[in-house]
Structures are given as C-alpha cells and as structure tokens.
C-alpha cells in the first residue's frame, strides 16, 4: 500500500495547537494507535537524531544549524543533544564547508551539510560536481563519498528570482550523485535514514512549503530504499508523475478531475536519481497517458527525461503525447499573480491532463 494511503496527510495544523510550538525538534506527538504525528521538518529532524545516536561519525554542519536551531528549524534541538563538536555553525561559506565535507568524508566521517536553501548551493557547485560527484570514480573506487547535502529546494513564498530555484534536474544530470526529493514526512524520514547509511553523495531536496505538512507515521524504525517510487493515488485514465511539492498540487488536480469523471493515478518517484521508471511505465501501461509535473524548467527538465524514457519503454502503450507541466521559462517574478502563473499549479495540471485525455 502506498505511504500516503497508509499514512494520510493531515490538513489541519494539529501540532501547532497541541504543542503551541510547531517546531518541535525530533519528538513527535504519540497517538493512541501507536503511531506518531509528525510534520515534515520533525520527520527530518527525527531521522537525523536517530542516525546520529546510532553513528558517532555523523556530524551536521551549515549556516545557523546549531545555536539558531536551523533557519527552518529542521535541526532543532540537535545542538543540545549532540554538542558543538557534532552540530556546527559555519560562516557563510558554502564552497568552503561543502569542500570541507568532502575532505571529511574521505577521512572516515559522514557529514551532513545544510544549504540554508539549495539556491545557496551554487557557490559550492564546483565542490559538489568536481569533487563530491566524481571522487569515487576518479579514484577507481578508492574514495567513496558518504555525504548528505540537504536543505529546502523550490520556490518559497514570494522570494523572487534568486531564491526560487528547483535543482532536481540540474543535479540529476551528473553521474555520481543521488537526488532525493520527498513529498511527505513518512517518505522524508525513511529516505533520510537510507541516505545516512550509504556511501554516495546525496542531494536531499526538501521543500520549504512542505515543512509544516503533518502525517501519522510509525514509531518503529523503517527505511525507504532509493529508486523505489510510490503511488500516491490510484487511478485509471491518466498517470500524473509529480515530484515533491508538485505531488500535492497533482493530488488537488486529481480531485478536480475526478469531478469531471477523469481518474488520475499520481506517481511520486521520491528519488529522481535513481529513478523508478518501471513503476511509472507500469502505471502508463494501465492508463495509456502521462503528464509530468515538476518545479524545474521545461528545457532539460525531469519531464523531458521521463517522457523520453517512456517513449523508449512504452511507446506502443501511449495514446497521447506525454505532457509536461513545469515552472515557466522565466526567473521567478515577485508579483503574486505572476508567481502563481510561473509555478505548476493545479489549474495548469488540470488543463494538461485534459489535453492528454483529448477532453
């Protein structure tokens, strides 16, 4: 069963009201059925907390991660729990601490670095690409890089051009990197724990607008493997492949379309690299139609990649060209109406699915 079906998202802000503090570190709210209620940020924090307890070589480093408890409070409480040797505030020096993390990973540690947002990974691009992504290969396997790079990705609220990038396609381009982009607290926790137990550099792309999403998830330990997607809603007429925040827009669109008699299957790949193309292809074999939704740009985006792979795998099963709903090809504008039109919002998804269904 899908994670979302098993662990539905809570629309209400239960945690806010119950705790008086929605930013509750790693401690979820225990529920009577044995599950716990966690926001996305708490799920991430819990994964870090549990893995740091287990493995003393894990340390967390980044801007404002320690004393400030994280710009988005994902690392809240970790400094108190693990001390300043393992939870380290850095200067604003992304290239420096990304490279430091590569060196630390080469010498027996397991760094977690936070980019306050993935927009700020660009000063560190050379370290991520030239060093982290290529080290294992160019050393003939001698130096794998167990490194987790994490932080919010995609558009924030009204933060305009330089703070609204979605980098899934960008980082997926390079062999050697793992790219993870979860849409739910359940997925985020399980994928983060996997990231902290494997030996490759991981771009863990969170989404600022999802940090408050809440979900009942198990208190018992679980891990989610890379390369295993998840069906977030079953349907028969059109497959919508959606990533991260777009999953929620796709679910909204699917609700709308259901009213018009169009049944959509929403597939969340969860990891972009490796990509669970088999899950997507199997869905398309059933629905014969596909629309890909993402916050990246259309040119060279994830949709372009998925459409091509579907053409290679299920060409004969497709009854319509694969549709793409992406961020429009412009830097993010500040004005509210323009920002709305730039993002792959539900009304654009609805239109794309109707087009794919010739409706």
């Amino acid at each position, binding site marked *: 069963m899908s994670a979302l079906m098993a662990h539905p998202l809570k629309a209400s802000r239960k945690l806010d009201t119950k705790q008086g503090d929605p930013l509750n570190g790693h401690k979820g709210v225990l529920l009577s059925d044995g599950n716990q209620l966690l926001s996305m940020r708490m799920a991430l924090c819990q994964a870090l907390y549990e893995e740091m307890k287990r493995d003393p070589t894990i*340390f967390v480093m980044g801007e404002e991660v320690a004393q400030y408890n994280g710009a988005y409070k994902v690392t809240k409480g970790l400094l108190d729990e693990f001390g300043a*040797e393992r939870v380290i505030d*850095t*200067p604003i*020096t992304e*290239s*420096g*601490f*990304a*490279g*430091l*993390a*590569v*060196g*630390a*990973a*080469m*010498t*027996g*540690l397991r*760094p977690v670095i936070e980019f306050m947002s993935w927009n700020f990974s660009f*000063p560190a691009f*050379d*370290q991520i690409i*030239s*060093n982290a992504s290529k080290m*294992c*290969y*160019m*050393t*003939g*396997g*001698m*130096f*794998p*890089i*167990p490194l987790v790079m994490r932080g919010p990705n995609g558009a924030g609220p009204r933060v305009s051009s330089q703070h609204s990038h979605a980098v899934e396609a960008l980082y997926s381009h390079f*062999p*050697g990197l*793992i790219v993870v982009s979860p849409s739910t607290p359940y997925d985020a926790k399980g994928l983060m724990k996997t990231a902290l137990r*494997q*030996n*490759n550099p991981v771009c863990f792309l969170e989404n600022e607008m999802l940090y408050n999403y809440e979900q009942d998830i198990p208190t018992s330990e679980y891990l989610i493997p890379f390369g295993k997607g998840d069906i977030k809603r079953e349907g028969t007429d059109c497959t919508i492949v959606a990533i991260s925040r777009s999953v929620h827009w796709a679910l909204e669109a699917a609700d709308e379309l259901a009213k018009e008699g169009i049944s959509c299957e929403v597939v969340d790949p969860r990891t972009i690299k490796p990509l669970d193309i088999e899950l997507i292809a199997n869905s398309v074999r059933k629905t014969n139609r596909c629309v890909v939704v993402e916050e990246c740009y259309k040119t060279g985006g994830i949709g372009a990649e998925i459409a091509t792979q579907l053409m290679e795998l299920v060409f004969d099963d497709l009854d319509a060209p694969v549709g793409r709903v992406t961020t429009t090809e412009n830097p993010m504008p500040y004005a509210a109406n323009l920002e709305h039109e730039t993002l792959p919002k539900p009304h654009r998804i609805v239109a794309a699915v109707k087009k794919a269904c010739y409706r």
Partner: protein
Amino acid sequence: MISTAQTASGAMAVIDAKAVRAEIGKDRLLKMYRQMLLIRRFEEQASVAYEARKIAGFLHAYIGQEAVQTGFYDHLDPKRDATVTSYRCHALALLCGLDPKELMAELFGKVTGNVRGKGGSMHFFSKEKNMLGGHGIVGGQIPVGTGAAFSAKYKKTGGVSVTYLGDGASPQGTFHESLNMASLWNLPAIYVIENNMYGMGTACTRASSVQDIAAAKAPGYNMASFTFDGLDLYASWKTAQQAIALARSGKPVLIEAKTYRYRGHSVSDAATYRTKEEVDKYKLLDPIERIKADLITEKWLTDAGAEQLYEQVVTQIKEALTFSDESPEPPLSELTRHVYAE
C-alpha cells in the same frame, strides 16, 4: 649555506644549513636525496613517454620544486596525517611511497594504474597513505585538505593535514574560505603555497595583489606564517618541522615556498612568457644538485655511491615503463564501475 625563513611578524629566522643538515642526519638526508632523484627521473621519463604518445592529456611536471614536498613529507606520519595537492601531484604520490609502476601505469591509462586508469596525471590518490589527491580544479583541493584537518580534530587522532597549492590558487575563493574556517576552528591544517612565480603563463605579479602571499595574508586570518626558499631542502625541512609542531597544537599555519618550475606549466606549454636566462639562473640553484654536493662534502656519499644510486633510480623507472607498456587497458566493464560506491 644560509637560507632564510620569514615569520609573519616580519622577523627573519636564519636557517643554518650545516646545523639543519646535522639535525637531519646522514640516513634521512640520503633518503630524501633518493626521493628527489626518483621524482625527477619519473617526470623526465614521463615527459619522454608523452612525446612518444604513450601518455596523453595533461602532464604537469614538478621538476625544480622537489625540495618543497620532500622536506615536508619527512615529518609526516601517513597513519594520522593527510596530504592533498593540485594536479601537479606526481611528487606527493612518490613521497607517499606509492610504487612508480602503478603511477606510471596510470599515466599510460592502464588498469594496473593507481586509480585503474580513470584519473591520469592529475589524479593520484592513496587511501592507505591518507593522500587525498591529485585535484584538477585550481584551488578545489583547499577545502578538502581543511576537511581532513577537521576529521583529525573530530576523531582526536593528533594528525595534521598538509594542503599544497600554487601561487595561482591563492586568488581563488576556496583559499580564503578555507583559511577562515581553519583559523576560526583551530584546525590542525597547514597550507603550503608553492609559489613557482607563474599561474600557467601569468606571472604572479600580474595575478596577486601581494607578492609575499603568506606573510601578507596570514595576519588577515589570525594565522602564523612562514616563508622559505623552496629550492633549499634544509629550509623546507626546518620550516615543516616548526609548522607541523604548531599545527599539532591546534594552530593552523600558512606557508609560502618561493620556488621555481624548470618545465612549462604542462608538457604542452613552451613557456615563452619567461626568458631562458631566468630559467638558467634557477637551474644553477637546483635543489637536487645542491644536496648531492653536500652529501659528498660530508662524505655521506661517494661519487661511486652517487652513480650507483642514480642507476638504481633509472632502473626503477625503466621497470615502471616496461610494466606500464605491458599492462592491459581497463576492460570495458570498468566504464560504468565506481560511478557509485560498491
């Protein structure tokens, strides 16, 4: 012979070559002499193999600069100390004790090479010797070395990291960012700028706002610094001894070796940006020849012994060339292997 080392405070520390030589002693000096000979011969023969098209891509020779890393390596313990350098990395790999066979085979692009034929001249590594490369992007290795120092402090090993970079890397942002972090966090990090006067074809005077880079910049990071004659093994060895002691006590150090490369930036560089007279002037100060003369004067080496030593090195490199010639290319199964950890 007198050489000078300069501290950040501006005080000139005089290095008494005779005293340092006595402190080093016969065995260690002979060892370092042999290491420098091996580096020189390896690169001379690699250049010949390049001309014969057995080696391709880039080939950046360290010839002329041997005294710098040789003097430093003598103080390092690879079990806890890490080293990292730029693409001019043949010397460091040889100093780590890696077999010239696997290094030459790497240049030849063979599967028996240091990194299975996947790196070439710019990417020599050793896990066992804590040698972290071999890096092709100017300044890209500086934060990596900083990370090794971070690890040593985190794991409380007592180790240090030594990061080598050229004068051409000091204007990069990674240099500034690394020094700031190392000083802020008291990392056991040593940064050695090997100032060979040219970043590719651009003279340091045209690229750097200051010419005594370490002395001028270290105070800005609240760091100690040393500047020494990089053509002088004794100055290198003595500076390294002091700097490593400081770093082991948790004080990062910035060092500048004033050195010179006899060859161009890489094998394809005719070096028309400098005069023959300038190159000849530095060749008269050849670090290897000077140590040989001292060894003979001290009667630690005879002329016949020197000849024998040289022949040993020649044979060792000849064997490396034969090994590389005879080694197989990587099988095609290697193409996608090691993209991810196994």
